[in-house]
């Protein structure tokens, strides 16, 4: 199997995740898009671990998974708080900047 498969797939997921971050209004949706990105990165790491034969890539991937979980927890907690305060989690409504 060509290495390029994994890498391209990861790139595609990444870009979709980027699009999601840009296009989505709901904060939770944005977090989901970020999960996509993170998973794309993970896929990249695993592919490189496969390519080089060293398991460091997998170790990193595990770390990313753990951190992603922590991040989602904290992120959702924040989203909940925002929702409590503002009654909305539409990101464009939350902005108080005048620009």
């Amino acid at each position, binding site marked *: 199997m060509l290495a390029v498969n994994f890498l391209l797939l990861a790139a595609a997921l990444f870009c979709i995740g980027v699009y999601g971050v840009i296009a989505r209004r709901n904060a939770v949706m944005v977090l989901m898009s970020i999960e996509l990105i993170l998973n794309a990165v993970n896929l990249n790491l695993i592919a490189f671990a496969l390519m080089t034969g060293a398991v460091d890539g997998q170790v990193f991937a595990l770390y990313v998974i753990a951190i992603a979980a922590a991040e989602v927890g904290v992120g959702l907690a924040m989203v909940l708080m925002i929702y409590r305060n503002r009654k909305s989690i539409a990101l464009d409504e939350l902005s108080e*900047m005048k620009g």
Partner: protein
Amino acid sequence: MLAAEAAELSSGWFLENAWLIALIPGIGFALIIGFGKHLPMKGSEIGLLSMFASLVLATGAAIQWVQRTNSAGEGGEEAFGIINSITRSIPRATEGEAEPFIEPVVTSWVWWSNANLEFGIGSSVNGLAVLLLWLVAFISFFVQIFSLDYVRGDRRYTHFFASITLFSAGMLVMLMAENMVQLILGWEIMGLCSFLLIGHWWEEEANSRAGLKAFLTVRVGDVGLLVGTAILFFGANAWAVDNLDSNGFNIGAIQAWALSGEANTQFLLWGAVALFIAAIGKSGQFPLHTWLPDAMAGPTPVSSLLHSSTMVVAGVFLVAQVYPVFWQGFNIDGGGLSMIAIIGGITIIIAALLAFVQDDIKKVLAYSTVSQLGYMMLGLGTGAWLPAVFHIFTHAFFKCCLFLCAGSISHSASHHSFDMKKDMGGLRKKMPITFAAWIVSTLALTGVFPFAGFWSKDEIIDNVGSNGYDFLLWVGLGGAALTAMYMTRATYLTFFGEPRGASAGEYHEDDEHAEEHEMEHISVGAPEPRSLSSAANTGHGVGDEGSAGDESHGGHGADDGSDHHDDGPHESGPLLLIPIVVLAFFALFAGLANPTPLASRFGEGIESMKKYVEPRATPVPFEEVIAAGPGESITIIDGRPSTTPSAEEGGEEGGEKSGCGFTAPEPGTACFFPAVSHAEPKFTKILLSLGVVAAAYAVAIAFNVSYYGRRNKHLVGLTDRSKVMRGGFLFLKNKYYLDYLYENVIVRAIAHPISKATYWFNQHVLDAAVNDVGIGARKTGEWVYDNIDQKVVDGAVDGSGRIASESGRGLQPTQSGKVSQYGALLFGAAAVGAIVLVLVNVS
């Protein structure tokens, strides 16, 4: 080189420190101004003391000058003792040696030096200077004594004394001037004081106008003084620097240059003309005489000091001092009719004629002064130098005495009025001493033997005749006759006949009447042009500027305290009489200082004026002329005469005149005075002049008695009946319409167009320029404001602000707070950066 070794001329402390004579009154002036008001006699004591000091110093200087003259030459005594019967009267030295020239004693300090020109100030004392210094100090002193009582109670008593003292200082400065600059300084100080004193009661407009008229008329002449000084400077400077180590302002250098034969005749002529114009102005010659009668608006002491004896002779002094210039410039040596003589002659006659129609006694005396000044000028213009100078001397005494008598009359008899017809008459009984002094002075003035005027005036007439000016001789005799006649009229109106007006004690009923009287006078005393329309008004004589009603008003200024209010006319107090008596004494005997007609009997030694005052026409070697150092008194020249033939007094024997003033002096010598000729007094000539005067007296007395006394019906009202008489009378009354000419025609023709033109220029050119500048500035400002300030500068400022805000606003969307946008930017930028990186690395 010289056969006779002459001793060094003696000098003396008084001669060397003659500058003190002028300095002390100057300091006195400053002290009076500073402290006068606080002193018990209100400053007059300083004035008196300073004049007394000057008089003492001048007397000392005179004595030392006499000694100096006597010390000249070993043969001096003998020379003076020679009895000359056929030769000319200037003492002739033995063996062909001329009398040595007595040089002036010079003490000067350099007050300014510029390149090669040094200006000195100090004293230069020669015979003429010492004579006049003494005279001025003497007259000033006695006039100040007179003023003590006369001006008492005046509102500006202290300033009066200050001005009079300053005047004396100024004249003394002028008299002792070594160079023209100092002379001009003294001249101008005198002009200033004249102005101040004439306008002493300036609250009345007529007085201030008179002061202005005096000042401005003399100013017209002063242009001549400055121009003349400049001309002479440019003419004489080169010669003076080369030969005498002096400069073109030094009077001695000018004298020497004029007689050197190397002087440019044009310079001499025009310099003489210019200086003479100055003399015309100051000494009241025709045509600038008009200020003198108006100057009578000042207090009587002023009239007696300035406008009769001292200031007005400044012009005569100028001509006499710088005589060589006039001698050469106007060709007096050639017997030509010079401008000086002509104007002098005209002045004598026209002033004498005008004195006939004056009602104001001071104006009669003023015109008399003008006439006598004409005599002096006539003398100078015809080569009769010594008689003219001698006439200055004697004239001062009797004229001053006459004025003081007039003042005494007004003070004590006519209640400050000077109108003879209205307020005087029959005063000989009430004021005997004044009357006696008046008579003595009048006789002196008219030239009656043996009073002072005879010796001087007749000498002038005599010399005029013998120098070849026959027509002017008759002019002089005619003037003497006229003098006798108008003085008789004045005397008669004042002292004889029935008392009128104030002399009759009428004034003191009410002061209001006096005020009205003065107001009338003042209103009539308006400037000449306006009052010409009432030419028919003979009552208040048109030419009669309110006969000193102005003065009487001034006298009322403060509490008089004097005793003349309730008694009617009476003799004056001692302070007024002492100067009068002293001056009358001199009027009687002053002629004996130079009694030329007696010289043939008593020897020439009695001619003191000629001996001591007249400079000698002797060339002096150059190398002896050295300049005075600062503050040092150096005898300029060691008075050794040269023995060359040209030094001899040129005589008529040779048929050719030679000597100083006629031929150029030897190279290497300088002449300082021309060899003027002196007429030999002949009995017939004396008899002629005395006879003319006597005849004039007879006619005058008869006329006065019949006209004023008995009111002879043929004479009274003559001017109303006869058109000719009336025309003549009016012509005289209006002073030959000269004032009209000056003020209305000349001044108006010149001043009005000039003033209109300058006004137009001012409004349309200058103001327009200024306004245009202002408008231009404003428009520029507006334009700048609109365009540059608002658009450019503000635009830049606004622009920068706008840039900031616009850029901020432009960048604002990046800070939208929208996460998606942040994300887009983030990833987009990363993409772009990555592309760039790839492209860079790939290429």
